C-alpha cells in the first residue's frame, strides 16, 4: 500500500479507536493528558542502567491497553517512525561501554548492552503512553481540554481545523497519486517535469478553498474560535486517575518493585 493511503487508513483507524467506549475512553481528557505526561517524564528519568526498574513501568501501558480493549499490535506498527533513530543512537552504546556490569551465571552483559536495551524500552514505553492518549481520546475533547489549560485559542482552533482538513487533503493527494501512477506505470515517484505542478496545483486549489471555507465559517457564526458545547466535567474518578497514577509512577521510580519482589522470592526459595 502507498504511504499516503496508509496514512489515510491510520487516521481513520485512530478515529475509530477513539470513538470506542471503555472505562479509559470515558475518563476526562485532561486527566489522561496529565497522567501521560507524568508517565513519560518518570519513564525517561530512569537511569540508563536501571533496566529492572524500568520494567515495572511497563505495567501502565499493559493495563491500559487491556482495560481500553485496544490491541497492542496497532501501536507496535507505529514504532517504525521513531525507533530507527533511537536504535541508531543506542546501537553504538555496546561498542563504547564495554565494562560488564551484569552477570547471569557466568555470562556477563556489558553496560552498553544494558543501556541500549534500556533506551529502546524507554522509546517503546513512551510511545505506547502517547498512543494510548490519542487512541482513547477524541480530538474535539482533547482540544477542549487544551483550551482549559489555557493553551492559546488560535493554536487549538488551528489544531482542530488542520486535523479535520488532513483527511480531506490526504484523500485528495491519494487520488492524484493513483491517477498519476496509472498514467506512468512502473515509475517510482513523481517525475522531475511534474515536481512543481503536481503539488502546486493542489496548493492553489486549496488556497481558494480556504477562502471559501472562511466565508462559510463566518456565515455559521465563527468569531475566531470554536465553541465547545459539551465540555466534560471532571468526576471523582478522573481526579483519582490524575493523582494516584502519577504518584504510583513516582513510587515505582524510587522503589524498585521488581527488585524487591525478586529478593523476596529468592529468599523464599533459598530457605527451601
Amino acid at each position: 500500500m502507498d504511504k499516503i493511503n496508509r496514512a489515510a487508513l491510520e487516521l481513520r483507524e485512530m478515529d475509530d479507536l477513539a470513538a470506542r467506549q471503555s472505562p479509559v475512553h470515558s475518563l476526562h481528557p485532561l486527566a489522561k493528558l496529565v497522567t501521560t505526561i507524568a508517565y513519560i517524564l518518570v519513564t525517561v528519568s530512569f537511569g540508563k542502567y536501571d533496566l529492572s526498574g524500568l520494567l515495572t513501568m511497563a505495567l501502565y501501558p499493559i493495563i491500559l491497553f487491556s482495560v481500553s480493549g485496544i490491541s497492542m499490535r496497532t501501536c507496535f506498527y507505529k514504532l517504525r517512525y521513531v525507533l530507527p533513530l533511537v536504535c541508531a543512537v543506542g546501537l553504538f552504546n555496546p561498542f563504547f561501554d564495554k565494562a560488564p556490569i551484569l552477570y547471569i551465571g557466568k555470562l556477563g552483559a556489558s553496560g552498553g548492552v544494558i543501556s541500549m536495551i534500556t533506551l529502546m524500552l524507554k522509546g517503546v514505553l513512551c510511545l505506547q503512553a502517547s498512543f494510548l492518549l490519542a487512541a482513547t481520546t477524541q480530538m474535539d475533547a482533547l482540544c477542549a481540554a487544551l483550551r482549559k489549560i489555557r493553551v492559546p485559542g488560535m493554536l487549538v482552533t488551528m489544531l482542530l481545523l488542520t486535523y479535520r482538513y488532513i483527511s480531506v487533503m490526504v484523500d485528495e493527494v491519494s487520488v492524484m497519486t493513483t491517477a498519476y501512477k496509472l498514467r506512468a506505470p512502473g515509475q517510482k515517484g513523481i517525475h522531475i517535469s511534474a515536481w512543481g505542478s503536481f503539488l502546486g496545483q493542489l496548493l492553489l486549489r486549496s488556497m481558494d478553498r480556504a477562502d471559501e471555507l472562511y466565508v462559510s465559517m463566518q456565515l455559521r457564526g465563527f468569531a475566531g474560535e470554536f465553541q465547545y458545547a459539551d465540555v466534560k466535567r471532571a468526576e471523582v474518578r478522573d481526579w483519582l486517575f490524575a493523582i494516584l497514577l502519577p504518584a504510583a509512577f513516582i513510587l515505582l521510580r524510587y522503589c524498585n518493585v521488581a527488585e524487591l519482589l525478586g529478593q523476596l522470592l529468592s529468599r523464599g526459595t533459598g530457605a527451601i
Partner: protein
Amino acid sequence: MHMADALLAPAVAATMYVASGTAAGVSIAKLRKDDNPQKLPTMAVAAALVFAGQMINYTIPGTGSSGHMCGGMLLSALLGPYAGFLSMIVILAIQCLFFADGGLMALGANIWNMAFYGCFVGYFLIWRPIIRGGWFRNMETKAALRLKIIIASVIGCIVTLQLGAFSVVLETSLSGITELPFGAFCALMQPIHLAIGLVEGLITSAVLIFVFESRPELLQDVDSVEKGIPNKRSLKTTVIILAAVAVVVGGGLSLLASSNPDGLEWALFGNAEEGYSENMGLDEENFGKESTVADKAASVQEKTSFLPDYAFPESESAVGTTVSGIVGGIMVAGVALLICFLCGFFRKKKPKTA
C-alpha cells in the same frame, strides 16, 4: 529527524518546550496584532496540505531513490514566518499524536529543530534577504525572481536542515543518552542531512516556482519586488546577513572536522578520569538522583544502579541482586499477563450477559 522521548532527558525536553513556547507566544502575539482572522483557515489548510504533500515521493533523476518536500520553507514562503511556525507546530503535534512520529515530551525539541529553524531562520535570514536583495539586476524582474526563489529554497533547506540535525545531536548528547562521541555523532548526522537538504530544496523550489508562475501574490515578499516597491535592505546588508548565517553553520560544521572532538565532550560533561562512559551524562544523571532520594530508597537504589565502578563486585551478592531483579521482572510480567487475562475475561463475558 523526529526525536523520540527516549532520546531526551526531562531537563533538556523542558528547556526546548520553553524555547519553542516562547517562539509560539511571539508568533501568536504578532498574528493577533495583524488581526486577520481570514488567515486562520488558510493556515490550517496549508498545514494539512504540507502534511499530505510530505508523503508524496519525488523521483530524483539519475538515482533510484526519491525525495520529499521541505515543509518549513514552503509554509514560511506562503504564509510568512509567524503563521508558518504555528502551522508547523500543528503538523508536528498531529504527527506525534496520531502517527507516533516523534514523542509527546520531545515535541518542544522537535518544534525547535524543524519549525523554528525552517520558519524563522529560513525566512528572516534566507528567504527575505535573497528575494528582496538586489541580485541579478541586469536580468528582467521575473527571471531574476525565479532564480532567487530557487536559490533561496535550496540554501534555506540546506541551512535549516543542517541546523536541525545539529540540534538533534546537541540535545541527545546533552541528555547523556548516547555513548557515541559528539564528533562522531555529528559526522553521522550532518552529511546525510546535507544531501536530504539539497533534494528537499530543489523539490520545494519547484513547487514555489509553480505558485510564482500562476499566482505570485501568494508568495511572501515576491509581490512587492515584482511591483517595484523599493527594497528596505541593500545588497550589502544581505551579504552581511548571509555571511553571518555561513559563520553560524560553518561553526557547527567545523565541529565535524575537529581533530579532537572529545575535547568538547570533556568540556560538556566534566572531567571524570575513569572510563569513557563515565563522562557522557552519567555523572549528571546520578547527581540529581542522589541529592533527592530518601535514605531508605537510596539503599535500594544503590543495588540497582549498575555503575561501571562497581562492575567487578564480589560476585555472590551481585549475582543475587541480578537474579532477584530478573525474577522480579518476570513476576511483574506475570502480574501484567494476569491483569490482561482478567480484563479480557470480563470484557468477553459482558456481551454475553447483555
